[in-house]
């Protein structure tokens, strides 16, 4: 069985190549949707089974897969090596499991699309890249995956590239990610510099990195890795690409922009946590940035009318929660939230896809994603509606669904991080407030979509999606319900907290995490009060919002607008981040390009090139006169040359 593990990485690549090349070569293959869909799903399903086998038979020893040496230069030796340890296996289960479900769903969702084969080729390529990212044993293989998922994200956001807006969204995502990738590269150089001066052979493997003391550059490495993570995992200041990324097909939003790729920054920080442990300043930066991101995105989500935009900002906000956990040193909790979030957010996105699918078939609706033209959909789409409700309750933190446990653990980590009133207590309050906003906007979007009066102006009624789309919804909803029980709170008994105590603590040793647990243990009464408070707030908010929206319908939005007053405009305008970047960065760059660089281009760059070519032509004009075309002249010159040479040979 162990010898089959390389297939986890190779099969998705094989699938991408076969489907992509097959579709390019043969029009018959291109039309065979059943074959393409089944093949693509199998190429993720088999790796999922292998990961599951490794997961359930895992004996505590890290499994290494060494394929071949990739590059060797001086004291640097990078191998194509993968590792299966507790963290990789958990991430692998999420990526291949959720990935498989979304492949299955896409068979129904993408039915009849022109680029059907292309879509599945990209999706398989994404799984390959993501597997590289989470299973890679060294930074370089990880980086291969890191760039690979960025590329696939770009390809899939711009999947319907004939629409200029979608193509621009793809470019925006790519450019924003490049900024983070650049920080990642510099971090890698610093790590190599640190390791190279200490050890003889450098393989940049994670085990090497986390056991090395980088001294003064620890702070910079941690900060740069975090900047890289803000790009991929959509935090301030680089999060602006994620809401626009919703231009891609909805399964893509579910897989890449909610469940897997955007969590890679959290994975990376958890993987390299000793470096962050050693730089508390960076942890403080992380927690502040994360809290700002979470609360700003939550406010923005309240004022959006596009169902996918709401979910996108909700994702940004939830990623903020994960980073808050990282900032408190509770890496295991962050990974726990990654897992539960993957379940309910993938389910929400797939549910919204199902809704969009239904709305698209009703041709009188202008924008199939606008919740103002929906309403009352649960009657027509019972499976989608029910699973959407379950996931909404889960993300809102209703006890005992998965979101409650992970979110509560994050909040508890923030509260018990230090003693007395400090920065982390402020962050805790912000987090609590954001959790309330989350419950509000998620209930709002669900109520406006699935409940209340029907606002679509159509005789033709929307219909439920086919079973191939609803089955993944039900599986994910079920996971969203039970997922939380993998990480029951520690105060109920350490052995019940499987994800931390039973599993991840073997790879993630965090001083902060221990301190948090000790503080919590010492103040059990406070802990009970906090849990009860957060459970109560969630339930009350959901209950209140439900009643508010069922009583007022769409008019409730007006009341919300009045309640927020002038601030609502800012929320609706997404806090003007795009406009800010347009004015401060993009605008000046364009001005520079049009005025200064264009001049340099014409007179300096072109000038040098043209000067060289003109010079050569002029010299040629002079010397071409030697070619008189008279044979006798040539012979005369040859003879003179021979005489000259002989003279030198004989008399010289």
């Amino acid at each position, binding site marked *: 069985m162990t010898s089959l593990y390389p297939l986890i990485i190779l099969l998705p690549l094989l699938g991408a190549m076969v489907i992509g090349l097959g579709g390019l070569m043969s029009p018959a293959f291109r039309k065979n949707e059943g074959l393409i869909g089944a093949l693509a799903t199998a190429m993720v399903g088999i790796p999922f089974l292998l990961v599951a086998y490794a997961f359930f038979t895992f004996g505590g020893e890290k499994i290494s897969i060494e394929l071949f040496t990739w590059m060797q230069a001086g004291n640097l030796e990078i191998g194509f090596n993968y590792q299966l340890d507790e963290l990789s296996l958990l991430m692998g289960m999420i990526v291949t499991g959720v990935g498989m479900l979304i492949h299955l769903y896409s068979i129904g969702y993408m039915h009849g699309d022109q680029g059907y084969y292309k879509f599945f080729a990209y999706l398989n390529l994404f799984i390959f890249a993501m597997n590289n990212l989470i299973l890679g044993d060294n930074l370089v293989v990880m980086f291969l995956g890191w760039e690979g998922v960025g590329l696939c994200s770009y390809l899939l956001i711009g999947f319907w590239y004939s629409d200029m807006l979608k193509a621009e969204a793809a470019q925006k995502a790519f450019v924003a990610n490049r900024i983070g990738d650049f920080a990642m590269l510099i971090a890698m150089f610093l790590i190599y510099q640190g390791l190279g001066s200490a050890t003889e052979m450098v393989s940049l493997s994670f085990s090497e990195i986390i056991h090395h003391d980088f001294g003064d550059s620890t702070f910079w490495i941690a900060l740069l890795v975090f900047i890289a993570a803000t790009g991929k995992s959509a935090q301030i200041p680089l999060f602006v690409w994620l809401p626009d990324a919703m231009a891609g097909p909805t399964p893509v939003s579910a897989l890449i922009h909610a469940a897997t790729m955007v969590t890679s920054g959290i994975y990376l920080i958890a993987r390299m946590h000793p470096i962050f442990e050693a730089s508390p300043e960076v942890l403080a930066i992380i927690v502040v940035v994360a809290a700002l991101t979470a609360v700003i995105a939550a406010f923005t989500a309240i004022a959006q009318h596009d169902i996918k935009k709401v979910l996108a900002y909700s994702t940004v906000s939830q990623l903020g929660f994960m980073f808050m956990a990282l900032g408190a040193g509770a890496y295991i909790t962050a990974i726990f939230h990654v897992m539960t979030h993957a379940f309910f957010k993938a389910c929400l996105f797939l549910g919204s896809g199902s809704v969009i699918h239904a709305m698209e078939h009703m041709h009188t609706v202008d924008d199939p994603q606008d919740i103002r033209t929906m309403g009352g959909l649960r009657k027509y789409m019972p499976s989608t509606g029910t699973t959407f409700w379950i996931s909404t309750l889960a993300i809102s933190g209703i006890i005992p669904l998965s979101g409650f446990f992970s979110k509560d653990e994050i909040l508890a980590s923030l509260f018990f991080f230090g003693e007395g009133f400090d920065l982390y207590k402020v962050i805790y309050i912000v987090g609590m407030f954001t959790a309330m906003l989350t419950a509000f906007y998620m209930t709002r979007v669900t109520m406006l979509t699935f409940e209340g009066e029907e606002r679509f102006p159509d005789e033709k009624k929307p219909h439920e999606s086919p079973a191939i789309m609803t089955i993944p919804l039900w599986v994910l909803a079920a996971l969203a319900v039970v997922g939380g029980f993998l990480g029951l709170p520690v105060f109920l008994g350490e052995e019940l907290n499987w994800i931390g105590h039973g599993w991840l603590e073997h790879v993630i040793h965090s001083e902060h995490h221990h301190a948090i647990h000790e503080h919590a243990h010492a103040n059990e009464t406070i802990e009970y009060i906090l849990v009860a408070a957060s459970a109560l707030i969630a339930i009350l908010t959901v209950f209140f919002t439900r009643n508010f929206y069922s009583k007022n319908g769409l008019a409730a939005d007006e009341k919300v607008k009045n309640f927020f007053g002038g601030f609502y405009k800012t929320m609706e305008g997404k806090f003007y981040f795009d406009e800010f970047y347009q004015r401060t960065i993009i605008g000046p760059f364009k001005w520079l390009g049009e005025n200064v660089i264009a001049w340099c281009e014409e007179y300096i760059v072109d000038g040098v090139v043209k000067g060289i070519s003109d010079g050569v032509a002029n010299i040629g004009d002079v010397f071409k006169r030697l070619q*008189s075309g008279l*044979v*006798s002249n040539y012979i005369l010159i040859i*003879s003179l040359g021979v005489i000259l040479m002989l003279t030198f040979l004989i008399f010289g």
Partner: protein
Amino acid sequence: MEFLTPNAYTYLSVAIVMFALGAIGVMTRRNGIIVFMCIELMLNAVNLSLITFSKMHAVAGAEGVPHPGANGSMLVFFVMCVAAAEAVVGLSIIIALFRNRLDIDINNVNIFKW
């Protein structure tokens, strides 16, 4: 008449004169066939000098050399063979040129001029 007795210098003098005539002819004449003949003249001059040197440096009666100077003579035959083949090619070029342009003045064949 001591100086009329042929020796190596006499032969070489003839070769030099022939070569010089040929070279001057190639450089000054414009008729393609004459130029070609001049080239042949130069070639023969070289042949003559080769055979002269061969005879001059041959060591008579040396061990294992039955016919001193025979190597040079053999080489000259090779040169003549190659020259004959070259003459065929050269003349056919001149004929082809004539057929195309009704003119074998090489100064008019200046298509390689800038």
